[in-house]
């Protein structure tokens, strides 16, 4: 298994956000059903995280750092919830962390344990290293036929050829993990105030879970 490696951040973006990093990790894992150990872990997490933690969460350093970054880039964390807050809110509404599938469960466990969000792309649909940049005029989100246009100036996660995700937003259609995916590219976005060790830990946890089998 390879180590997490730093992606690139465009100069224009890094001048404004010098502590912004993208960290990626390829994983030779296929999607599928979660093994019992992962489902049990989600149940255990449900017992550990309750209403009190949900309320106190926004004062914790890592979720707070993502809230602040949302403000800095024009997002409203009370409307477009940060991933950690969205997960906690869903846990309260649904009464627990529910198992969906191996990938979603792995992303969720890593997120709840570390506060760091991770996304996954189909490795076969990624060309080169991932990075963060501003979208140019006329660009589309991904390379699929139905790829929607991306407004110029939007912060995106891109590979060598095109934007593949809106930063903290949707993935490009046709580039996410599908049932026939044979390998994945995990990536996370580190913002000011989030220690590197948290990001690496999140990626390791996620990849370890993805490689677990019954």
């Amino acid at each position, binding site marked *: 298994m390879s180590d997490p490696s730093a992606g690139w951040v465009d100069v224009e973006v890094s001048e*404004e956000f010098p502590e912004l990093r993208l960290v990626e990790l390829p994983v030779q894992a296929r999607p599928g059903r979660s093994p019992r150990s992962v489902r049990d872990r989600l149940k255990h997490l449900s017992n550990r995280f309750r209403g009190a933690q949900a*309320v106190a969460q926004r004062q914790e350093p890592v979720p707070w750092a993502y809230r602040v970054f949302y*403000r*800095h*880039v024009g997002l*409203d964390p009370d*409307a477009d919830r940060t991933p950690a807050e969205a997960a906690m809110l869903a846990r309260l509404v649904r009464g627990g962390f529910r198992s969906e599938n191996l990938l979603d469960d792995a992303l969720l466990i890593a997120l709840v344990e570390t506060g760091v969000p991770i996304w996954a792309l189909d490795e076969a649909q990624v060309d080169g290293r991932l990075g963060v940049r501003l979208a140019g005029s006329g660009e589309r989100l991904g390379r699929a036929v139905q790829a929607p246009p991306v407004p110029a100036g939007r912060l995106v996660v891109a590979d060598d050829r095109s934007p593949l995700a809106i930063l903290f937003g949707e993935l490009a259609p046709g580039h996410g993990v599908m049932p026939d995916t044979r390998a994945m590219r995990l990536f996370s976005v580190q913002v000011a105030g989030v220690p590197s060790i948290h990001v690496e830990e999140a990626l390791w946890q996620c990849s370890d879970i993805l490689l677990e089998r019954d």
Partner: protein
Amino acid sequence: MAVVEQIRSLSPVEVDERAARRSLRDQIAKLERELAAAFVGAFPRQGIDFGVARAPGGPRMLSLGELEHVRDDLAERLVEVRRQLYARAEEEEHKRELLERMLVEPGRYKWVRVTARELGRGDCGAYHVRPRLGIVGMLMGWWQVKVSSGCPLAT
């Protein structure tokens, strides 16, 4: 040569703008921290709006003006939240004093009811001055504070 001079004269302005944006981001971070602290401190009180007017558009690099707008909205919201919390704290203090008097002399506060929400203790529960043994207590002047700890049933 004239072009070079023009670029030299522009550069400090750009640098200053970047420094100003950085300063605004620091202020936004500080305000967000204070708003988060107010949010946590306000729990379990409800009905306080912590939301800030939403700027349209997705993630992007905000201009100086946009960052000022975010900073000002956060500052306004923080002032309003603190004002509401202060008003609530005063009301709750009055209700706590009333509850203490009710507990000492229930006969003077017949049928008075103070809810947990009015005391800033969540939604469930109430303190109600009621006669002991129903109508007998009412006639004899035996009053007591009954504590209802349950939540209303879901409808």
